[in-house]
């Protein structure tokens, strides 16, 4: 995938390093990672705890700064952006799904879904909004507050919130981590369909081999470096690969 020049790239990292502490005590969360995330594909990042998978995603998504190297969203070098421009970039071009659903408790489901667009001061494409809402099956719960929704429903609101603005790229951090397996499958199916049907780009960090099997490609990180990748993954193959880390 790293050599696939025919595919356009949604985001990439070049020689990305992230170091915590200095000298003897320095911890290299990212030790020079170069990676492309192709457009209209579903990429999963896996690795044992402390491998740097979350750090990689956070740095590419502009939530954290690299110690050295650069990260790009499309052609924009985000390591050069100011804090404010970074916020605007996230608002206009990125979407996020978290393990903790992270909805604003005082806003209704509809308002939470529309939050990024409200912040940008733009209107939703009504047709697209309806499509997304019906896809995630929330039609009759739009007027409810998050506290009146189940965990699965809350996560579906969070997915819809990421999808509705049609961002260049959606970053998902353990999106099914807090859900039972049936609801988890539902959410992953939505994400898969978004990639297949509308060409949405998704980058997902997970430690669940089953979740990773929904991706086009799985990247494996260990000690801050990409050590392997797997195209067309299945849950069993991913699990086998993961077992090798523990060995």
């Amino acid at each position, binding site marked *: 995938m790293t050599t696939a020049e025919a595919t356009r790239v949604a985001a990439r990292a070049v020689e990305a390093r992230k170091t915590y502490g200095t000298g003897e005590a320095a911890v290299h969360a990212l030790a020079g990672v170069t990676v492309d995330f192709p457009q209209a594909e579903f990429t999963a990042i896996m690795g044992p705890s402390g491998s740097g998978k979350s750090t990689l995603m956070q740095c590419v998504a502009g939530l954290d700064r690299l110690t050295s190297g650069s990260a790009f969203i499309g052609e924009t070098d985000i390591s050069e952006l100011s804090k404010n421009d970074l916020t605007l970039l*996230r608002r206009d071009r990125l979407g996020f799904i*978290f393990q903790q659903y*992270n909805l604003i408790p005082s806003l209704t489901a509809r308002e939470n879904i529309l939050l990024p667009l409200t912040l940008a001061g733009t209107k939703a494409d009504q047709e697209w909004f309806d499509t997304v809402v019906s896809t995630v099956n929330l039609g009759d719960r739009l007027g409810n507050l998050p506290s009146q929704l189940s965990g699965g429903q809350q996560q579906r609101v969070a997915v819809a919130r990421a999808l509705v603005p049609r961002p260049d790229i959606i970053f998902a951090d353990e999106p099914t981590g807090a859900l039972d397996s049936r609801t988890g499958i539902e959410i992953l199916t939505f994400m898969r369909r978004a990639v297949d049907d509308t060409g949405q780009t998704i980058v997902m960090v997970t430690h669940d081999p089953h979740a990773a099997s929904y991706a086009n490609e799985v990247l494996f990180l260990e000690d801050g470096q990409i050590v392997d990748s797997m195209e067309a993954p299945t849950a069993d193959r991913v699990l086998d690969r993961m077992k090798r880390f523990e060995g």
Partner: protein
Amino acid sequence: MLTLVLSSVRHNLGRYLATLVAIITGVGFYTAVGFISDRVIDSFEGDVDTQYGAVSVAVIPDDSLEVDNATATDGQLRVPQRAVDALLDLPGIDGGAGIVTGTVGFLGDDGAAFASNTTGRLWVTDEELNPLTVEDGEAPTGTGEIAVDQGLAEDEGFAVGDEVTLLTLAGPEPVTIVGITSFGNSDAIDSSGTVSISPDDAFDWLNDGHTSYETYYLRGSDAEADLVDEAQDVVPAGFQAQSGDDFRADQRQSAGSFGKVLKQGLQAFAILALLVGGFVIYNTFSVIVAQRLRELAVLAAIGATPRQLKRSLRTEGLVIGVVGSVLGVVAGFALTLLLDLALRITGGSLPGSATTIGVANVLGGLLLGTIITVLSVMIPARRAARTEPIEAMRDAAVESNVLSRTRGLIALALVLLGLAGMAFGGGLWTIGGGILAFMAGLFVGAPHLAKGGARLARPLLSRFGLEGRLAVDNSIRNPKRTATTSNALLIGVFLVTLVGVAGTSMKDFAVGEINKLQSADYIVTSTGGSVDDDLIAQFEEVPDVEQVVPFRREPVLVGGEVMPISSGDVDAIADVSDIKVEVGSLDDLGPGTIALLDLGQADAPWVGDTVSVEDTDGQRSDLTVVALLEPSLDAAQAGSIVDQATFEDLVGDVAPTVAFIDVASGAQSETKRDIEDIADLRPDITVQPGNAIGQLVGTIFDFIIKAVTGLLLMSVIIALIGIINTMSLSILERRRELGLLRIIGMTDAKVRRMVTLESVLISLLGTLSGLIAGLVVSVLLVLSINRLSTASVTPSIPVLELVLILVAGVLLGVLAALVPARRSTKLAVLDAVAAT
């Protein structure tokens, strides 16, 4: 458990910061006020010993003959030399000192008067009784010699040997400064400076040539009681002999009572500030309990009893209370030293020589701070004790914005009860109880008010965009906390409004009533001198002066009471002044008759009755009452009126000492200045504008309103700390949410604006409810006064001040948000994704 408490305090120190600041501010203010007042009290009481330490018997005006202030004039009874001679002849008396004072001034080479309000004093030759110490040069013993006090010498650049011109009642006199004096630890006895004058000149210059004294002090070696008994027989009419001990005790009390009243008043404000601080403490601990629910639940799960949980919180409160109070006492002492230093730098000084650390003040501060803290922690501690172990398993603390209906009903009932009490109450208890019930209702119902207020504000704040909308929603997520925060501000604003509205209404009423009582434009009084023809001519030359009416006045005993009697051109006096006859007629005034001032006493003589009038020498005449004069300010100046012959018969042929001046209506301020300029060159002359008392009362009211408002600022500052505290704590609680908003694209500026808007909302809530409560209570109070008395006070609403308070409320909100808003965007956005 104590280890747990201490480690918890250490870990949460940041959260306790606001609590500590609130306690320190209140306790610091309390102790500083105590230290300074004690110093003032000590110094005043110390002065008494310096001044009267050697006095065995004091011959002073008889208090029981004192009339109320409306009729008291500067005309005092005096101790004549005859009486003094008799007193000094008594066996066992070793010496004496008479007090003679008068106003003096200095005439510069340029012909202008300066230091023209200085007190001239007869130099006391008896060394033991003399309160002054000669610091430089020598005592003024010969004619033309004076001594000035250190302060005056420093201010005016006087030195021993200087030849200056002293303005006295007898006119300008060339004098030589022969000495510089001090008084105990201070410069002078008199606040405006002391000039000591030798016995050769003092009576001429200060007392119009009469050898008589205001008071007389005796020194003797026998027992004070015996000396008093002896003196009693020779004391002149209107005077009494008091033993030195009693006299000093009285003096000490009257000197110290000012300081004591000051101390109590100021400390009341400090306690109020501390009570407001109680809200801050309560809020902090409520938040801490909510945030620590999981930790408390774990403790409960592993076997901590509710009692232990409660005690751990209370102990935490105790630790914070003690630490805050100790720091507060230290801050209070530092504040005192700082104030002293600041005063010294600007050329002033606190009275007294040194600040002593009074044990009572320190203990009082420590106890107050600690008790209020522990009391404020009671309710949060009870909440902690109710923690169920199951809460350890639950997700983050759930905020509840559900308010019970009972609370609303209780609040409503209290408010209605309070309003009824204030509107229909017939006495202090019902009205006071009404105010308390009304305020209690407001406090109980405050969460409902917060919710309702936020709902009302929603359309307005939504105009600011999403952040405005979220600010409103956040503020009512925990309406109780919002309410407690704004309640702290409510108290201060309520009191400021109450004092402003009720005070202004009373002031306007009082000033109006007083001004109704007087019509003469100026009253000229000579102390010790006379209003002579030359002076009258000078006044008459001033443009716009229409009439100058001089009259003679002398204090005498009328029917056993000290009262001035006056005599002059009765028609002219009645013409320019407000003297009105109630019964009888001034036309009947002739030899052997009197127009008596009606003091409103039930047993007062009536027209046709006879009253006995006695002068200081004990000479008596019986006069027939021909008229009763209505009491007014002008009438009080004149007292009772007799005709010229009767006056001369009683007092002697003396010059007039008082005059009413009538000025054309619409006269300019130049007229006033011209009149005052003439008076300035005559130390004995004082000019009072006719509305002076009204102005004075108005000024006093204004001063009290301003002073009280200023003191209430202390509680407003603590309320400000409360808002900062609440905002900071809720930002910590919501950091996940704030992180999310920023991740999905809310700019830092908007996040800060959201925090600021919430803060403004809280502070406006407190300001507005305080303002409205203050208005309601003060208007009802004024109406109650009207209902229960014959007065008709119009409620005056100082609109400008109220608008200013409102604007200040908004600014306060913005100010309180400064720190929390900055902190809100300092948190890492990644907090949102970090699973807790």
